[in-house]
Each structure stands twice: as C-alpha cells, then as structure tokens.
C-alpha cells in the first residue's frame, strides 16, 4: 500500500472507540446536504406513525393492484418482511451470525405441511388434516425448539464457529428434506416417508383458524400483513424492554455484559428461539399459501436474499429491515421474466442516468461524461459499421426515445456470438477499476464503461433477468459492506474487540 493515497473508506489513522462514541453527536450534525437533512427528518418520525402509514398503504394495496400477479408483490413483501424481522432479532439485536436461519423457515413450513395435507407417511398412514389453529402454533413451537437446540452450542461457540455450525445445520436440514422420503432406523424398519424427498409435499391444506379461512391470494395477503403487524408490535415492545436492552449490550460487548451479571447464555438462546419462531410462522404461511412445500424453497439463495434485506435496510433497525424487504422484493419481482424487457431497459437506463446526475459534480465534469459518451458511442458505432455492416443491424429491446438514443450510440450486432460475454468480463474489470481510480482518470474511464454496460445489457443481461437479479444481489452485498456496512437506516457503531 506504500505510496497510495488514503482511500476515503478506510479511516486512517483508526480512531479509538471512545473517541468515536464521544463524537457521535458530531457525526449526526455533520450530515449536511439534502440526504443528511432528510435522514435526520426521518429519524424524528415516531414509530407509531411509521406503523400507521405502513398499515394504511398495506390495506389499500390490493385495491390499487390487479388481483393476479401484481398482488404477488404484496404477499411476497409481507412474507419476506416477516422473515427479515426474525433474522434481525438474531443478527441485528443479539449480534449472532446465524447462517441456518433458512432452515427454521423450512421447519415451520414442513411441520405445517406434514400436519395438514394429504401427505402419506407410509402406505397406510395418510392425510393428517389438522386445522390451522393447532398446526400454526405447533409449527412455530417446533421451529423455536429446534432454534433453541441449535442455539445451545452458541454458549460455547461464538462468532465464526457459530456461523459454521449453523451453516452446516442448514445443509443438514436441506439434505434431510431432500432425501427424507424413505427414512428407516438403521435399515431395520420399513421406510417412512417423512418429507416427500425431492418432490416435496404437495396438496397442503389452506389455513383454517375457526372462521378465518383464507383461500385467495388477497386473503393470504391480509393474513400475512396482520401477522406482520402483530409480530412487529411485539418485537418493538420487546426491544424496549429489559431483555431488549440486554441484547443490545450483549451485541456491543459480550464480555462486559457478562461481567455486569447478565445471563449471556440465556439471552443468546432466547434470541435464537424468537428468530426461529418468527421464521417458523412465515414457513407455515408459505406452506398454506403455496399449497405445498419443496426443498427448493429453502436453499442458499433464499438465505442470501433475507440477509441482503437485513443488511440493506440496516441490521438492528426494524423500519430498516422492513424497508430492505420491500426494496429487495420489488426489485426481485421487477427483474422477473414476466416484466417486459422494454420496461426493464427503461428502468436500467433511468437508474444509470439518475446516478450520474446525482453523483458527478461539478457540472462540467458531468457534461464531459455525457458528451464523451455520445461522441465515443457514435464513433465506435460508425467504425463498427464500416468494419462489418452486420454489427449494427441488431435490434435494441427498448422502444421509444430511449431506444432511439441507444440505437444511435451502442453497437448492436445481429449475431453477437460471444462478444457479450467478453464484454461482460471487461465491464466487471472496468467497474472494479473505477472504484480504485479518482480525479480525471475516473472521469475519463466513465464514458467507455457506460457504453460497455449498455452493450452488455442489450445483448446479454436483459435476456436473462432472473440471473441478472442474483448477480446484482451479490454485487449489492459486497458494495454495501464496503461503502455503508450499517445499511440504509442502521446506525454506524464501533465494535469493541
């Protein structure tokens, strides 16, 4: 690193924890500009208001959207918000890294599915159809109990080792779920079909709690939102209680907390169990609403999605993780094959343009970037056309004005062959280089990067939105960690090692 300019992200020299804490107020007041003021304003809104606004929007949502796939946004957001709130208890409040969280989600779902479906355990034992008022509490309790058992090692295992054990627990759960269709004790008894194996448990009953019998998507949406509001209220009361404060101190400094006489072990176990219970509830709702559970519902991608929500929103902040769940689910659903490529493209170019307008100062630099992009793009296109006429004969996916502009500036070959793939790799290299450069070098590199991005988007990414969204997730996690590890609404804090 010798001779390198200090990077703004790396505080050098590292300030001590005490100093950091004492300068907290300064950090707060130091936030200038529009975003800083907006954030301070948001912080002043009382939580009750948040809740009311949330409920109001949630209540009218089904009226605004059409019944079919648009309501999927609502239901998915509510379900993921529930999951994110649960994970927030473990990760955000108690500071335990639980990589097995998705298994509790699965345990809740499987428990519900096995107790209320036409699933056959053996040839003769078929179709346990318990009503929802019994199975949902059982699902929650089972998940909480397993959470307690998995949390037991956290008494001895801390930090990384806990992450390892929970990760392997999740993998163990997935293995059992995917292979558990002929379980026998040491081969002595005849096989019991415990989980339906890779085919999952189809034909799960809808929820029946006395008079509450949701069957439509709307009904499940309202059911989930009500569950979410109840859970959120309970958690809000909890974090303001003795237990909540104890968790916070545990997270900040476990050793100090223990020396102060706090029951560290029980606190950890409690956090684990509560997180697992909430995941179990979400699982039960998923099983009923999806009318089936499958091992693929609980894979690593889901775990990472939930983590992305908590991290993006800000671990520790309830409003933050709900916001994270909303943002990520909406992005996820927008980037699905059902959205037309034209709309996706409009969104893509729009976001880039807005980012440029906001981020690049002063104006002459912005003018240089935009002008450079236009000139360079046009020149490259002319040259490409001269070299091979077919290289500009392809069609751009976006229509209208944006389409015309892109058509004018970006090389769109009719038969791109492997060029998009090389360009994708070059784009990654260019983006990484941008993070390391500054001053005029960076300004110079932006126009070619933009053109490259447009080319890759038109020829590769827009055709596979499902893959693109996962790539964006991965990149988002890394970028978030390097730029703003506390998330959107989270508070920066110092870890005392």
């Amino acid at each position, binding site marked *: 690193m010798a001779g390198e300019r200090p990077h703004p992200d790396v505080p050098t020299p590292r300030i001590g924890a005490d100093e950091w804490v004492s300068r907290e107020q300064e950090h707060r007041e130091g936030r200038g500009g529009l975003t800083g003021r907006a954030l301070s304003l948001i912080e002043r809104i009382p939580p009750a208001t948040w809740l009311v606004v949330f409920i109001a929007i949630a209540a009218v949502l089904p009226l605004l959207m059409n019944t*079919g796939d648009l309501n999927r946004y609502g239901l998915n957001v509510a379900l993921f918000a529930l999951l994110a709130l649960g994970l927030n208890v473990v990760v955000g409040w108690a500071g335990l890294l639980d990589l097995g969280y998705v298994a509790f989600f699965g345990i809740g779902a499987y428990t519900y599915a096995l107790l209320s479906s036409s699933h056959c355990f053996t040839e003769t034992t078929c179709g346990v159809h318990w009503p929802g008022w019994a199975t949902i509490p059982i699902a929650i309790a089972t998940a909480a109990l397993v959470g307690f058992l998995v949390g037991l090692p956290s008494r001895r295992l801390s930090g990384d080792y806990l992450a390892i054990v929970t990760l392997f627990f999740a993998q163990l759960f997935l293995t059992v779920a*995917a292979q558990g269709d002929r379980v026998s004790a040491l081969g002595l008894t005849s096989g019991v079909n415990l989980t339906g194996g890779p085919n*999952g448990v*189809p034909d799960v009953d809808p929820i029946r709690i006395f008079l509450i019998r949701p069957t439509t998507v709307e009904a499940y949406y309202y059911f989930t939102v009500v569950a979410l509001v109840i859970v959120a209220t309970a958690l809000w009361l909890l974090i303001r209680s003795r237990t909540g404060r104890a968790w916070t101190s545990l997270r900040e400094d476990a050793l100090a907390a223990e020396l102060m006489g706090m029951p560290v072990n029980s606190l950890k176990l409690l956090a684990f169990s509560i997180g697992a219970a909430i995941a179990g509830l979400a699982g039960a709702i998923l099983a009923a609403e999806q009318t089936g559970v*499958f091992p693929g519902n609980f894979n690593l991608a889901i775990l990472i999605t939930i983590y992305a929500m908590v991290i993006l929103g800000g671990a520790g902040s309830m409003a933050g993780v709900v916001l994270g769940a909303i943002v990520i689910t909406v992005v996820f659903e927008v980037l699905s094959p059902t959205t037309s490529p034209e709309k996706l493209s409009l969104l893509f170019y729009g976001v880039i343009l807005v980012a440029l307008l906001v981020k690049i100062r002063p104006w002459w630099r912005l003018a240089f970037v935009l002008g450079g992009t236009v000139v360079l793009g046009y020149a490259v296109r002319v040259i490409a056309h001269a070299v091979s006429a077919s290289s500009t004969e392809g069609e751009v996916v976006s229509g209208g004005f944006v389409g015309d502009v892109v058509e004018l500036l970006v090389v769109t070959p009719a038969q791109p062959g492997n060029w998009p793939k090389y360009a994708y790799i070059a784009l990654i*290299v260019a983006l990484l280089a941008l993070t*390391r450069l500054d001053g005029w070098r960076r300004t110079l590199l932006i126009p070619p990067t933009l053109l490259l991005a447009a080319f890759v988007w038109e020829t590769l990414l827009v055709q596979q939105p499902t893959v693109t969204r996962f790539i964006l997730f991965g990149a988002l996690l890394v970028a978030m960690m390097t730029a703003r590890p506390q998330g959107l609404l989270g508070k920066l804090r110092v870890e005392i090692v």
Partner: protein
Amino acid sequence: MRKGLIAAGIAVLVAAAFVTAGLAKTEVLAAPAKTEVLAAPAKTCDVSVGLAVPATGPAASIGQEQLHWAEFSLAAFNAAHKTKYKMVVGDTQLPNVAAAIGVARQFASNKKIVGVVGPAGSQEVQAFGPSMRSTAYVSMSATRDDLTNGQRPTFFRVVGSDDTQGAVDARYAIRTLKADKVVVINDGSSYSVGLAARFANVAHILGASVDLDEITQQETDFSALATKIESDVDLVFLPWQLATQAQTFAQQMKAKGKNAIIFGSDGLFTSDFAIEGAYVSAFARDIHGVKGTAALIKAYEKKYGKFGTFGPPTYVAMQVVLDAIDRACQAGAATRKSVLAQVKKTNLKKTILGQGIRFDANGDVEGGVFFIYRIASGKYQLVFPTK
C-alpha cells in the same frame, strides 16, 4: 501495487477469454426466439397457451427441444387456421420443483392463459395440481403411472404411462436380454421411484434377482456407486431424468471394468447419453419413420436443427390444446372451462407420432405404447417392437 493490479486484471481477462472461447464451441442454449404471429385473422380469441418446460437447468437439452417444437407447432397451427394464439413460456428448471410451482402460479394468475402444455416432469405435474384446478394441462413427457389415478381431473398426457414402460422394459431385459441379476437405481424423483418399483416388480415376477439402490439428482461422483455394482450383475436399469448423470455413471462403470448392460428409461433418450451398446426406452417412436412427416421434419430441421424424441410429443400436446381452444373459440368464447371441456373431447385422427389421440376418463392417452432402442455406433436402432 497499481501495476500488479493491472497485470492481474489483464490475466483475468485472458483466462476468461480462454474459457469463453473454449466454451463457445459447445454452445447449446439459445435465447427463446419470438413466436411468430401471422396476419389475416379469422375468428380468433385473444388468449394464450402456457408452456411449462425446463428451458434451463440440467435438463435444458430436453427443455429446449420441447420449447422449439412448441413454437413450431404454434406457428403451424396459427398459419393453418389463420388465428393469432400466443404462447407464454415458463421455465420449470427441472429438477427444481419450487421453480415449477412458481410457473404454475404465474400461469394461474395470468387470465389470458386458458390452457397449458406441460409440465415435463412427473414431480412437476404433482406441483402443478393445486394451481391448475380449473385449467387443462397436457403433459408431453410425464409418465409416472399414478398421475392419472383419477385425482387430477384437469390433467392429460399424450404419452403412455410407466405402468406400461416398466413392464415393457423389464420383460425385454429379462426375456430378450436374458438378464438374471439386475440392479435398479432410482434418482429420487417421483417419476424415477415409481418406474423403478414397477420395473423391479415385473423383473422379480419374471424370476430375476433384483437389487435396489438410489442416488440424488445433485450427484456427480459415481465412482463409489460403480464400485458397489458387483461384477456378476447382468444389467443395470437407470430410470433417470438427467442424462448427463447417466453418461457419467456409465463411464465410471466401464472404467471399473464392470460390463453390465446399461438400460435407461425415456429420460435418457437424448444426445447427452451416448453409451455404446446401451438400451433406452422411449415413449414415442422416432418420427423419421412415420409416414407423411418428411416435409414437416425438413421444415423443422431447417429452422432449429436436429432433434430427439422429446420434441414431437410436445408438438402434439400443443396441437391438442390449440385445437381445443379453437373449437371453444368458434363455439363462443375460449375460457378455461370451455377449453377444458374441449380437451376432454379431443379426437385427433392422425398425428406425427403415428397414432391418433383420444383421452380416457383419467386423462391417459388411449393405446399408449413404448419403444426400445439400442445405441449402436452413435445411432438409435429400434429393437422393440420388431415389425
């Protein structure tokens, strides 16, 4: 430091270029082409057919063939009847059942979709059930026998059931190939488990000694399993969905010096499985031999290239659904209910599979048959039924 970074960047680029250049030669997946819509409308309804195929994932080679034949069938139907029906493609990513259920729900919530072609796998049919309570769905390759046990009133299939396939395969393996000691390995999917059980039963009744084993669809290391096959085993029956797995397993067996005959089910009837001397059963005959299909094959191959046995049944399934939609449309309106009623009444006199299509009360095709091929010098040789 910066120089090092630049060097690293260049090195990564070069390595990546190598990889993609190399991979370019084995490129298979193409982006789904846009379906053609022809002008000159007759009486037509603005409705769509849902197509559920594994367009990506380990079974993508099958899914792509099915996708192409479905497009081909739609274009042919629209051209012949001057209609403008559309198709919505859902990627079920076999063996990922969760993805299949996502497709089913997407179809169910899309009111334009009045009939569905697919899904391809038997476990996917089970996953489709709850979302398809009022929509007809016609599978082109799901063969598990108990799918048509009367519990799925909207399910139909244009191919025979594994009840037949298991029995035909077992009889051929034991009677014709004279196998005394047989190992049956299932891959855990609902299709595979059912077919393996049926085969084992019939083989047992015919007097062979049968051993059972199982793998998962995520498995790639088969060396210990190949070791486990004893050297006096005559035949290994693989009712698997993923041909690449079977190919690897067969190679491992050969390397271990095990000479048992490999006998695969319809899932292995694709170019990914090419073990010399192996037997494969198929639910459709190679349509190159069917009378009156030459022009159609030529037109297809001109546009999409070569194909196996998974495509033509998709063509027929698409035909069944489009035909039902068209009849419903001419008689008033094409709704899910009217299309379902029309699918039940399907009576195609002659299809490219060489047989007519009528469904029985449970949705099974009447007179479903299976064929057995032997792979010899890279080509399929029909060995059953002998003409």
